[in-house]
């Protein structure tokens, strides 16, 4: 593989991994369910897209890269629906979000 492509995919994969870890840290640091979901969506979107982009560079133009694109496509459609279902269910159950600066108790 081309050296430039190798380093590009290395860069994309590391950046995606970093975002996924930061999203994971965020789900622990945030104060309540709704704010934790925002942190998780960093892993869901930014982390996922960057890792997939890195893998796409690795795969080059082939049947494998089409499969990767298909995964990205379906994840981008299903993950917001799952997030919405979770948030709606929590609100429906009467789980009140903490609002305001600092999101105190």
């Amino acid at each position, binding site marked *: 593989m081309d050296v430039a492509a190798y380093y590009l995919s290395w860069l994309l994969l590391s950046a995606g991994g970093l975002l996924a870890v930061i999203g994971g840290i965020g789900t622990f640091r*945030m104060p309540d369910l*709704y704010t934790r979901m925002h942190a998780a*969506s*960093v892993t869901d979107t930014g982390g996922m897209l960057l890792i997939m982009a890195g893998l796409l560079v690795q795969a080059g133009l082939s049947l494998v890269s089409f499969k990767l694109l298909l995964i990205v496509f379906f994840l981008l459609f299903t993950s917001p629906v799952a997030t919405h279902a979770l948030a709606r269910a929590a609100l429906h159950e009467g789980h009140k979000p*903490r*609002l305001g600066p600092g*999101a105190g108790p």
Partner: protein
Amino acid sequence: MKYTASLFANLLLVWLLLSGHYTVLITGLGLLSCALVCWLGLRMGLVDAESQPLRLITRLPLYWLWLTREMARSNLRVVTRIIGGPGAISPSLVSVPVSEKTALYQAIYANSITLTPGTVSVRVQADTIDVHALEDTAAEDLEQGEMHRRILQMKRSSERGAG
């Protein structure tokens, strides 16, 4: 009819690109199963402008490009808030007006809101979407309606183009 043809073409494309085996038997089985799925879809009444949004296809890539940029920007913003810790956020719950009643466009809007980190649509109603935002600036951005305007623009131009 054109929706059935489009569904068939899409299914066949996915089959051909996923299988990678181009013998007569395998491709024939693929054709057969695509036809079967089309027939089932027709019987269930699923093949319509909503499941095959043909008019949108030429407009969607431009919107997706813009959405990707928005996702990148809000990703960075949420990352700085995570590093800043709970002191750096000010969650708020806002109602964003929706002037578009079609299920397809409401779904596009609500999903786009959820896809950009920092905002999650928690309830979709007839003319508003309730949004939980990680900080009030994100909520204000949404209330200014840039995303809504782009979706409406996409809808209008697709209706013009289809004639």
